[in-house]
């Protein structure tokens, strides 16, 4: 792999005639974003940013920006931004009784409270809760295991239903990183580069990348590709805008993804459409896999998924005969207890059709290079301070005995088991919590956030760090630390956390932090020196300085041979792709061709799953509370609720303070088919109650035919910063809290995947 950069791009800093300084930089977080690293120009006058524009010299985004960056100054200079460390007496939780303190006092409190907690409740009685996608993910493991010295770091989404199921399959069946459609982001001519072949088709499965730009991919690349002739196959229960521009739309019943995937595979295998050459050379366990697929024939798949058999057959032929085809999997595959099996089958689809790692096909990733927590997904080359954890602590990580794949892969506590522990003190109490870059009582991540709310009240002490106060902070936190935005500290972005080629983009400090804000790196660095000085003061350790951190981190990015200073000067340096890595010995540490698995092949009969007592082959699981799985509920709860569709104007529970963004979307909506609405006497704009056996909430009705008559789609992430923040209102966090309707601990066999997108529900007008 090699790199390149533009010779003609503007310098990183320019000074205009009137003295305004113009800085090129790239976006990540805070405020929240998935880290595409879109190119920005920040215009600075007398130390204040006066304007943000897109950077035309960015090789992929070319000046284009979404509304969140276009309104970034409203975040940057918002009157509600947290500017100083604040503490509150734990007896005043839920009240707006904050007292400004110094950083030294804040660090003193953290040090003394962690010490007291360990002494009173045990070495592992602390937890660090994280959110999704944000830059803070880089530094969470330093704070949790290296500074607080607990192994109970936890991503609170039930079933770890974001990326873990997908990365699990990529890691277990192929020994490599994530697979992603090739959008030529690593080639100098991008979509028109001679080395690139435009995909004939893109198979987009449960994803709306235009709004979500997941994990560093540029969502609007698919518009560029479609303008050039790529056709889209969209798998989504909603007839969204992309579906209206698709060649084929498979509008499946929510949650039945694997029935549809089996149907496609059944046709491809039974009609002998698969790539025999690829299967002979690179697939292990095809016969066993085929036997399993035999159990799920086409007509069954059509009946279960609601997608007509003829359409499934047509799409299967298209996938098998056209080349290249890119596969683009979304969160819907994770947010399903059947998720690991779904991704297993989608991986098989990409492999059996010979589309893996070819130009315009589906790229095979390297392992993650961001320090996301020393998991199997991450490489280990850097000089990190050791985690001062005992073996006993590691083995007592909550939930790992029940779900042994967690320590193998994500190396964190199991979220559903952690909530059980918080509630019951079994197997041991947890009494100290650090809330990092997340808002677990907002309807954005945790299932049953009311239970998290109640359970976290038991903490002796809770710390959080953020740019704004959110409902979780107001309800539960005793010490609140102010963070810098991405305009106030250094960092970088890289596609898919380092797994994929494309722009490595410098996120460059443009102005001094407001107030006394600090970056998450700085907090880890300073707190590490205080609490674990023997490690954090060691010369050459990764946390010695921001530059040392970034240099060591960049050194792990495969094929990227540039320092932070070089990257900062060029702003963007692009990594070229390596196609057909499995033929070239690029996926295995021994340099031999093949995949980094026991057999050297893609194990469609997965030996890793078998070794941990799981099913080595994919299965279909009916959504657990559907009318078929639980017919006794069907009359009371006749609708299927799906949640989590993304919006332009927010990143999950963030951005609700920004007036310009609220003008685009002012509040939460539930999409209802007009015929369904008529049946229940609901008009457009009515406030409706959504209710199921786990909970209820209210939103405004949006009547739209993009959902079928049996499906409703509800927004997530809503709370209202303009409302009373104190208990019990908590900025209105319970009103539209759709996650109250998501059950706890209904997760897949490996502990991955939960039911956020396929739940029973009823609706009625709120004034009834």
């Amino acid at each position, binding site marked *: 792999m090699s790199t390149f950069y533009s010779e003609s791009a503007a310098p990183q800093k320019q000074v205009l005639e009137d003295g305004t300084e113009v800085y090129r930089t790239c976006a990540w977080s805070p405020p929240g974003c998935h880290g595409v690293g879109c190119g920005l120009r920040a215009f600075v006058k007398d130390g204040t940013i006066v*304007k*943000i*524009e*897109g950077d*035309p010299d960015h090789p992929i985004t070319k*000046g*284009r*920006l*979404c*509304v969140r960056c*276009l*309104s970034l100054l409203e975040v940057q200079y918002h009157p509600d931004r947290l500017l100083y460390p604040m503490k509150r007496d734990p007896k005043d939780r839920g009240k707006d009784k904050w007292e400004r303190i110094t950083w030294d006092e804040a660090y003193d409190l953290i040090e003394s409270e962690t010490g007291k907690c360990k002494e009173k409740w045990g070495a592992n009685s602390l937890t660090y809760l994280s959110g999704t996608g944000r830059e803070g993910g880089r530094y969470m493991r330093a704070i949790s295991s290296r500074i607080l010295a607990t192994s109970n770091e936890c991503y609170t989404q039930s079933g770890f239903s974001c990326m873990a199921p997908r990365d699990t399959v990529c890691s277990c069946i192929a020994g490599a990183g994530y697979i992603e459609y090739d959008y030529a982001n690593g080639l100098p001519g991008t979509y028109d580069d001679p080395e690139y072949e435009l995909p004939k088709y893109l198979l987009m499965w449960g994803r709306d990348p*235009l709004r979500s730009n997941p994990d560093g991919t540029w969502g*609007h690349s698919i*518009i*560029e590709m*479609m*303008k050039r002739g790529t056709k889209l196959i969209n798998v989504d229960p909603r*007839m969204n*805008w992309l*579906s*209206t*521009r698709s060649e084929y*739309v498979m509008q499946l019943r929510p949650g039945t993804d694997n029935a549809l995937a089996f149907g496609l595979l059944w046709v491809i295998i039974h009609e002998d459409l698969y790539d025999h050459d690829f299967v002979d050379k690179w697939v292990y366990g095809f016969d066993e896999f085929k036997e399993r697929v035999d159990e799920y024939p086409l007509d069954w798949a059509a009946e279960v998924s609601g997608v007509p058999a003829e359409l499934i057959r047509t799409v299967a032929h298209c996938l098998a005969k056209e080349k290249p085809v890119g596969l683009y999997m979304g969160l819907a595959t994770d947010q399903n207890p059947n998720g690991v099996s779904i991704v297993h089958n989608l991986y098989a689809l990409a492999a059996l059709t010979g589309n893996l790692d070819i130009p315009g096909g589906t790229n095979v990733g390297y392992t993650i290079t961001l320090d996301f927590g020393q998991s199997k997904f991450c490489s280990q080359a850097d000089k990190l301070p050791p985690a001062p954890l005992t073996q006993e602590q590691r083995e007592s990580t909550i939930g790992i005995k029940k779900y042994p794949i967690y320590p193998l892969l994500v190396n964190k506590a199991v979220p559903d088991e952690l909530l059980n522990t918080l509630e019951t003190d079994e197997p041991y109490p947890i009494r100290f919590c650090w809330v990092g870059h997340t808002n677990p009582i907002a309807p954005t991540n945790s299932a049953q956030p009311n239970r998290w709310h109640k359970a976290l009240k038991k903490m002796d002490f809770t710390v959080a760090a953020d740019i704004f106060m959110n409902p979780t902070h107001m309800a539960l936190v005793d010490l609140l630390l102010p963070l810098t935005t991405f305009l106030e500290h250094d960092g970088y972005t890289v596609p898919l956390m380092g797994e994929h080629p494309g722009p490595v983009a410098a996120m460059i400090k443009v102005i001094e932090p407001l107030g006394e804000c600090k970056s998450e790196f700085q907090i880890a660095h300073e707190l590490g020196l205080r609490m674990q000085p023997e490690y954090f003061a060691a010369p050459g350790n990764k946390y010695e300085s921001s530059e040392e951190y970034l240099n060591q981190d960049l050194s792990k990015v495969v094929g990227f041979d540039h320092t932070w200073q070089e990257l900062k000067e060029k702003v963007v340096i692009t990594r070229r792709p390596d196609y057909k890595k499995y033929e070239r010995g690029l996926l295995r540490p021994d340099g031999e061709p093949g995949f980094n698995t026991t057999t050297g092949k893609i194990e469609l009969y997965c030996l890793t799953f078998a070794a941990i007592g799981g099913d080595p082959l994919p299965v279909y699981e009916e959504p657990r509370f559907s009318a078929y799985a639980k017919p006794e509920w069907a009359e009371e709860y006749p609708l299927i609720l799906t949640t989590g569709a993304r919006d*332009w*104007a927010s990143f999950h529970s963030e951005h609700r303070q920004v*007036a*310009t963004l609220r*003008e*685009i979307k002012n509040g939460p909506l539930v999409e209802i088919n007009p015929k369904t609405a008529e049946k229940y006497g609901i008009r457009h704009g009515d406030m409706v109650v959504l209710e199921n056996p786990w909970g209820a909430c209210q939103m405004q009705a949006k009547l*739209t*035919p*993009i959902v079928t008559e049996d499906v409703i789609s509800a927004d997530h992430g809503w709370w209202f910063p303009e409302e009373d923040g104190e208990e019990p209102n908590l900025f209105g966090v319970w009103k539209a809290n759709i996650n109250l309707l998501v059950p706890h601990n209904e997760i897949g066999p490996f502990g991955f995947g939960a039911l956020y997108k396929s739940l029973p529900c009823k609706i009625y007008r709120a004034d009834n």
Partner: protein
Amino acid sequence: MAEQYGLLIDNYWCTGCHSCEVACKNERNLPLGQWGIKLLELGPWEKMEKGKFEHKYIPTVTSYCNLCEDRVAKGGVPSCVLHCLASAIEYGPVGELAQKLADRGKASSIVVP
């Protein structure tokens, strides 16, 4: 008479991202409730051909729009053109835009403030 300029909007590929609206508000320093370019929505509804939907976004300019004359005078492009995520807006003399529209032959509009 000076040549009339305008914006050619590709309503087939406009994804409805609202970037034009906010980019324009920034450029023209417009308060809440005021727009120099506004995104309107056509549909979605299911057409008589089952399974096919009509759904388009229609950005259109208001009297605040001066086609970013300051930016253009400095050699730049209008802010909505630069920031449009789908690159669905082009700036130019209306005559040239009309030719481009004719060549494209579908789902486009030319707007003039």
